[in-house]
C-alpha cells in the first residue's frame, strides 16, 4: 500500500479527498443545522435515504484515504528505525480499515 500510494498518485489522492471532505463537511453541517440529528428517528431516516448514505460512505472512504497518505508522510519523516515505522504504519492501517469497515457496515445495517 505504501508503494501504491506514493509520489504523484498520493499527491493527487490527497487533494481529491481533501476537496470531497471539505464539501461534505459543509453538506453535513447544513444537514445538522436542519435537524438531521435531532432525534434517533430523524437521524436514522436521514442516513437511510440514498443520497446522505452514499455521501457518508464516500466521506469515510475519502477520510481514511486522506488520513493514510497524511499519517504515512508524518511517519516517514519522524519514525525511525524502519521496524518502528512499519509497525506504526501497520497499527494505523488497522485503525483506518477498522474504522472504515465499521462505519460502512453501520450505514448498511441502518438501511
Amino acid at each position, binding site marked *: 500500500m505504501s508503494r501504491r500510494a506514493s509520489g504523484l498518485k498520493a499527491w493527487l489522492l490527497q487533494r481529491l479527498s481533501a476537496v470531497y471532505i471539505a464539501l461534505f463537511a459543509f453538506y453535513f453541517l447544513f444537514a445538522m443545522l436542519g435537524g438531521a440529528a435531532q432525534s434517533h428517528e430523524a437521524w436514522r431516516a436521514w442516513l437511510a435515504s440514498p443520497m446522505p448514505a452514499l455521501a457518508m460512505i464516500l466521506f469515510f472512504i475519502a*477520510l481514511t484515504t486522506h488520513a493514510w497518505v497524511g499519517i504515512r508522510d508524518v511517519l516517514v519523516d519522524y519514525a525511525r528505525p524502519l521496524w518502528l515505522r512499519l509497525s506504526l504504519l501497520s497499527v494505523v492501517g488497522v485503525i483506518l480499515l477498522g*474504522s472504515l469497515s465499521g462505519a460502512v457496515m453501520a450505514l448498511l*445495517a441502518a438501511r
Partner: protein
Amino acid sequence: MKNNNKRPVFLDLTRIHQPVMAVMSIAHRIAGVLLFLAIPFAAYLLDLSLRGAESFAEARALLDHGAVKLFLWLLIWAFAHHFFAGLRYLLIDLDMGVDLATGRRTAMAALGAGAVAFLLGGVLLL
C-alpha cells in the same frame, strides 16, 4: 545518526524564530494527527447512534461528557486550521499566492482563522 559535520550548531530554542509559514505548517501536521485520532471515535459514534433509540441517547450523552467536550473543542480548532491551511496549499498548487509576502499573509490568515474557530467552538461547547 553520527554528525561528522564541523559546522557550528545553533540550537538555542528560545532564540530560534520560525517563519510564520513554518508555524502554520507544523500546526497543519499536528491538527492532521489529532483528526486522525478522531476517526475511530467518529466511526464508533456513527455505529452507536444508528443501533437504536437507547444507543442514540448514549452517543448523545457521550458527546456531553467533559473530557469528550475538551477533545471536541480541540478537534474544532484542528479541523478549521487543517481546512484553511489545506485550502492555502491547494491555492498554491494553482499558482495563487506563491510569492513571499502573500504566502506570509495567507499563513497568518490560516492561523488566525483556526484561532477564531477555537474561540467560537469554546462559546458553542462550553
